[in-house]
């Protein structure tokens, strides 16, 4: 119990510090934007980690679910009688989760690279369909989406995502997902319905991707099918692997590191992508298992460590 209160306190303190920073102006709008991007990437990376890292299902379609969330929100909050933003966001997540279910049921029978292709395929189908629906703006997208969310919303949702995912992972349900990753046959023989857990991971992951997409629409104000293309999925996958497959804290750190690296590289426009690719390779060479491997850095561990240190 004390542990929980402590964690809550840390979460609140971080929130207070950043909010204050923004009020005072130490954190200017540019930095704030990048902090929001980090939070968004955390949601996307941790949720993909549930699918690919924890459950071991190689998915290249995360951006597709993001698109569903983003478009749902964009449409619902711009209706003649607009729905409230957070309700729309939830609906966006549910739609994405539903898509995850529809796609997951047949596709998750496939393994490894075959699964990768199928998920990639579905994400592309989602994108192409949106691209060809004029009501959704077609290729030119939807712009001037009213802003429905700000720093507080981003922060709270990111924290909730982390807590929910980590609670799932550290339960029997999460362990069953890990079992699916490690050895499907062995998992089945100890009574784990591997299909169910694959689909479950897929649905939960898709839900949070949808939420992430909706948050994007609600803050960035402009969406286009092209934003949610295959390369977006790859970007998220890179974060997951770089952080360490199966490590939520790894995903969080990778989301932070990669977003900051990318921002810093803005300063060298001519070679930014060349440098980025080299950095990517070097990190992988030095940390082949990802920054954290399968380990987790828990907030509670850090706290208790510090207390001991004092």
């Amino acid at each position, binding site marked *: 119990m004390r542990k929980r209160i402590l964690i809550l306190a840390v979460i609140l303190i971080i929130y207070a510090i950043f909010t204050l920073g923004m009020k005072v*102006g130490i954190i*200017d*709008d*540019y930095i704030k*934007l*990048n902090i929001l*991007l980090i939070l968004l990437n955390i949601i996307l990376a941790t949720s993909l980690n549930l699918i690919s890292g924890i459950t071991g299902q190689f998915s290249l379609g995360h951006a597709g679910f993001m698109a569903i969330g983003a478009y749902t929100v964009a449409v619902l909050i*711009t209706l003649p009688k607009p729905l409230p933003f957070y309700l729309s966001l939830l609906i966006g997540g549910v739609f994405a989760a539903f898509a995850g279910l529809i796609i997951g049921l047949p596709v998750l029978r496939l393994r490894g690279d075959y699964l990768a292709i199928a998920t990639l395929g579905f994400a592309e189908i989602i994108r*192409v369909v949106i*691209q*060809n629906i004029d009501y959704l703006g*077609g*290729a*030119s*997208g*939807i*712009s*001037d989406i*009213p802003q429905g969310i700000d720093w507080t919303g981003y922060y709270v949702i990111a924290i909730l995502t982390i807590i929910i995912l980590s609670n799932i992972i550290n339960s029997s349900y999460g362990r069953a997902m890990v079992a699916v990753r490690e050895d499907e046959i062995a998992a089945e023989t100890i009574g784990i319905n591997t299909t169910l857990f694959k689909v479950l991971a897929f649905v939960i992951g898709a839900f949070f991707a949808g939420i992430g997409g909706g948050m*994007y629409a609600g803050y*960035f*104000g*402009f969406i*286009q*099918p*092209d*934003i949610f293309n295959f390369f977006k999925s790859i970007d998220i996958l890179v974060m997951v692997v770089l952080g360490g497959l199966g490590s939520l804290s790894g995903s969080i750190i990778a989301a932070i590191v990669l977003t900051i690296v*990318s*921002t810093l590289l*803005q300063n060298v*426009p*001519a070679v*930014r*992508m060349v440098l980025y690719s080299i950095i990517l390779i070097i990190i992988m060479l030095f940390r082949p298992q990802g920054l954290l491997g399968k380990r987790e850095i828990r907030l509670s561990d850090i706290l208790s460590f510090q207390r001991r240190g004092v």
Partner: protein
Amino acid sequence: LLSYSKSSSTIKLGVNLELSGAVAQYGQRALEGIKMATDEINKKGGILGKKIELVIFDNKSDKTEALNIATRLATKENVLAILGCTTSGATKSAAVAAMKYKIPIISPTATDDKLTLDERTGKTKAYVFRVCFNDSFQGDVMAKFALKTLKVKSVAIIYDASSDYSKGLEKNFKVAFTKGGGKIVAEEAFAKSEQEFSGILTKIKAKNPEAIFAPVYYDEAGLIIKQARELGIKVPIMGGDGFDDPKVAEKAGSKYANNVYFSTHYSGQDPDKKVQDFIKKYKQLYKNEPNAFVATSYDLVYLVADAIKRANSTTDREKLRKALEDTKNFAGVTGVITINKYHNAQKAAVIIELKNGVQVFKQKINP
């Protein structure tokens, strides 16, 4: 906090372009035009006694990054205005920041009709401008050209469904052409980076259109012309300013680059000294032929410089915005530009014909 720092001895202009990634070829060419014009202006002493300083960033052809960079330019770098981006998507994304921080953003080449208009209210976005014509104008021009000059009644369209430029032209051409009594016999779409068009061309061939309209960029244009001709399709092929690159003829091969017509901003054969100087200078600098991206971006800098001069302030974004709005009959390489109330460049279009791979001036169409 957000106002432009007064002490600066230069005029800082932000450049937000696709220098890497999917459409780097547009951004890189646009940057050439921007740099060339800036150098010229600075050599002549700058504007209002100050030199232009370009603050250049690469948005990786990524929309989110375009917004990120626009935010940076508007807040951290304190530039007077933002030049860019080349594509409508990135520009729209960046425009979110432009509106928020009240800084003019002027695109050299983004053509989507909706770019400068608020999608919710339909009003013109105060800080968003462009120096090129928009899709509906070009679509109109080519539809009229098809009906009146080529005198064709049935047209097949090939377009890039993943490109808002291509879709915009397609849509507006269709409307104008059918209104004028023409018939669209086929509409075929493909997605970015396609190289193989024989499938859709074969289908089109079976429908026997009198002409083909292909609102695409030069890479695809060259391939479409070539593959169509190889399949024995001989009818005229039309396009927009995306065709305006010498590569179209090179790719198609001079044998096939015939009976091709496209609308664009200016003709290389235009005897106007400004045009000829521009072409000569560009060739010297870059050992290459200029295309539409280079030319409009080149004009972009001069147009902004002109507005700064009229605003008589090197620091005030609001004054610059007004001056931009007031731009009338600005004489650039790509024509005489007036910024209309929708913040679009109003100017004449020229129609170019390819004859044995050579660009020949065909006619001029006024707005």
